[in-house]
């Protein structure tokens, strides 16, 4: 089992969700985060105060998958989230020690396999 963590642009979230759905990846969690990935700072001005925004809005996906699903998941995110500009984000694949499904008590691969 792996945990796929992907940081993507907010405007690409729907595309990523659609691509994941097509790749039959079902269980996922997303959260709004802020981050910096080397893209150009954007300048904002409020009356006399000018600031450089170091942090950009991003969305983080967390997807627990069985080993055979790692490649399709990464492929789906990679193709859907890419614009070619700096700031498209990152995908991290992390080893997972243990997974439990709370409702049934199932463990590991059974716990990350979608129901029915």
């Amino acid at each position, binding site marked *: 089992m792996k945990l796929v963590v992907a940081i993507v642009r907010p*405007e690409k979230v729907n595309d990523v969700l659609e691509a994941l759905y097509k790749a039959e990846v079902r269980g996922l969690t997303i959260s709004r985060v802020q981050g910096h990935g080397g893209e150009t700072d954007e300048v*904002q*001005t409020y009356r006399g105060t000018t*600031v450089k925004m170091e942090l950009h809005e991003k969305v983080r996906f967390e997807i627990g998958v069985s080993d055979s699903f790692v490649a399709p998941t990464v492929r789906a995110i990679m193709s859907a989230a890419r614009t070619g500009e700096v700031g498209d984000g990152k995908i991290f694949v992390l080893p997972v020690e243990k997974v439990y499904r709370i409702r049934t008590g199932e463990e590991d691969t059974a716990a990350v396999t979608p129901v029915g």
Partner: protein
Amino acid sequence: MKNLRWLGMLAVGAGSVGLAQEPELSAADTAWMLVATGLVLLMTPALAFFYGGLVRAKSSLNTMMMSFVALGFVGVAWALVGYSLSLSPGGNNFIGDLRFGFLSGVSLENKGAVVPITIPHLLWMAFQGTFCVITAALISGAVVERMRFPAFMLFMTLWSVAVYAPLAKWVWGGGFLADLGAWDFAGGTVVHINAGISGLVAALVLGARKDFGRQAILPHNVPFVLLGAALLWFGWFGFNAGSAWGASQSASIAFVNTLLAPAATLVAWALLDLTRTGKVTAVGLATAIVVGLVVITPAAGYVSPTSALLMGAIGAFPSYFALLWRARSKLDDSLDVFAGHGVGGMTGAILTGVFGQKVIAGVEVGYFDGLIAGNPQQVLIQAFAVLIAVLYSGLMTFGLLKLVGAVTPLRASAKDEATGMDVSQHGEESYTSGEGAILVLESGEPRGAPATVKG
């Protein structure tokens, strides 16, 4: 508005003997019109909230700015040339002359206006100016989240002179539609059909937002939408009752009708919502209020309170179904300027010809009889005025957008649109925590440590 009053003025102008009875300056009328002018001006920021709540958070400031900017650019254009071209007594049946250009000759006396008035000429100019401002702002709802801000400023300024001014002249400034006997108490044709059709054309010329039809685009702040609708209704009392140009019985009937028609639209809309989906929606009711106000606008001082209730209820249907159709179509008139103001305006203009009556609640405050009072021809005259407004507004808006587009790009880049119009057009955000913001000093050097550690 008051075609008959204008005809009286024409008689004076033509040198008829002994008709030179200029009305007296009235303190009561002036007091009401001072307030009414402020009320109508409030409608433009109110519209900013109405529209701003309906768009996504990342373009909400930009959407609100499109209304706010009209207060300046259209307001100035109105004072410099717009007022004179719209409502100077000179010129011809199609456009005024420039005698009041830069407000020259517009005095504090109640003299010189195209119609006899009982308030200072300057105040009358200001009152009319607030109409031009909101009309230009209304169009923005059709092009939100994708039109470049500089292009929109240029377009709306030119539009206020080239499209609004002639139409105002035709209907209110003694132009050819007034001659024909078309009636528009407070701006069904000049304001709402005009803005609705211009919005439709602008949405077609600009094209749809990239995300339109691909993903759900939801209102980011529904309470803002309700706040905007509430403030619009409040301001609309000045819009409609102020269009009587005095503290009169005519103003009172317009005021009452402005209360009753949207109330009836709200009821009809709620029942339609309930029947169709089983739930009454907040965005739906906010829209209903605006539609009801639009429908009663051309008729406000010309129909009885009962007719206003009927007009409000009937007026809900065309706009309700136009909205449903539009949302399923490929037309990205994003905030439904056409379905709300265009369709509502046309419904109101035609129904004005149906329900108009001279005697209202025992007093002859109306100016004409409509279909029900035995004058079916009025409906045809109203329909003709609608047709002219649709054609002129549509063609001119198309031409102006092509012209502006030749000078500067109309659309934001795909990247700017995706990032959101607030940051890309204004360098500001509606909702920012300030995290990660580094202060830039005048020297251009950042001060202090960044809020994040760079890897």
